[in-house]
């Protein structure tokens, strides 16, 4: 189980699983977006997240002696996934999808920036690349928050509803525990205080121009990083893993 893993593997899986699960969620939307341009955009976002997941899973696979990234992605059970509960939230309407994307982007951009200075060179290299990608994602999601939040009465109502839906899962993006302490001492994992400060600044600035507000309800749902997920992750994994589980090791 989780506690038997080397801390570095746990750390890598937390990053990888955020990206893998989000890539799968975004993939569900391909061919269903309201406009062709957004369909292409969502596929590109999904591909970037999948690429990031593959890089971190590949490293984790080497450390654990697992055969490869595919096996880690396709044979772990729900409780072994360490993604934040944010990324498993269902797509909902476009406002909810963009709210989720914005929160993830606003977290990942400064997170990867800090991770690019990691003492682990391999992690630093992947993070340096991923940072550029997530900054670009953030431009995209921010522009939609502004356009919808500062748009018509109806678009504002639905964008704010999307924010309200996703807000209770924000803190779980930053959730950490003792497993990562030594990694931080060793300079492998970043300090999250600065990452959170940058996230808060982004939220304040974008919400101001988008006329959106932070929900008053302080409730936050935690646990994803320790494998405690919502009811939404299981069905997602069942769909994602069904082919591989039916035909282990399959490739095409």
């Amino acid at each position, binding site marked *: 189980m989780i506690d038997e893993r080397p801390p570095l593997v746990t750390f890598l899986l937390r990053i990888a699983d955020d990206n893998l699960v989000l890539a799968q969620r975004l993939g569900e939307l391909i061919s269903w977006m309201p406009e062709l*341009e957004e369909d*292409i*955009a969502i*596929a*590109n*976002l999904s*591909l*970037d*997240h*999948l*690429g*990031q997941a*593959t*890089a971190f899973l590949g490293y984790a696979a080497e450390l654990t002696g697992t055969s490869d990234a595919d096996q880690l992605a396709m044979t772990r059970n729900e409780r072994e996934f360490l993604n934040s509960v944010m990324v498993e939230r269902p797509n909902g309407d476009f406002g909810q999808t963009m709210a989720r994307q914005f929160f993830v982007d606003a977290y990942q951009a400064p997170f990867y920036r800090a991770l690019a200075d990691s003492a682990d*060179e*391999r992690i*630093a*290299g*992947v993070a*340096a*690349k*991923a*940072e*550029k*990608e997530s900054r*670009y994602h953030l*431009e*995209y999601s921010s522009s939609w928050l502004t356009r919808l939040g500062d748009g018509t009465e109806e678009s504002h109502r639905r964008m704010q509803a999307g924010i309200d839906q996703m807000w209770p899962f924000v803190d779980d993006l930053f959730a950490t525990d003792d497993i990562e302490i030594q990694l931080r001492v060793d300079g492998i994992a970043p300090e999250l205080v600065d990452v959170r400060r940058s996230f808060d600044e982004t939220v304040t600035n974008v919400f101001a121009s988008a006329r959106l507000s932070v929900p008053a309800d302080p409730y936050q749902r935690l646990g994803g990083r320790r494998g405690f997920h919502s009811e939404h992750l299981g069905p997602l994994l069942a769909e994602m893993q069904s082919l591989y589980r039916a035909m282990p090791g399959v490739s095409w």
Partner: protein
Amino acid sequence: MNSTRVDLVELRAEIGEIPDPEVPVLTIADLGILRSVEESPEGIVVTITPTYSGCPAMHHIEQEVLGVLAAHHVEGVVAMAFSPAWSTDWMTDVGREKLGAYGIAPPRPLETSISIRQVKISCPQCSSTDTELINRFGSTACKSLRRCLDCLEPFDHFKEF
């Protein structure tokens, strides 16, 4: 390992000619993703770097590189280097010219004292600088979609990254 001596400079030149599968007008040398071709005790090590983490072309390029090595009867491996991260500034001037002639607006330089926003993107058809962004994302991870406001043609822009 095979004892055949290979000229690393020639080998590098040949590997560098491998076309990018998504933008075939560019070679991997033009793109700047071929890092090094070196000899090691285990054979030739060809180091390439991904443009985007999820770029589906990387696997294809890896196979092409191994094909070139096989043609020379040398053993070798392809190594993937993430750091330092690839940037469009690594694209050669020849590559930029080829892109423009192919109908894709080349990336503007990132390492410049003036803000990148102030450098206009020209239409590859009519050279007008009066163009607008249609979509930040395009047909491949490395491109965005724009439109020329003079000749009205839509075109791809190899985005700065």
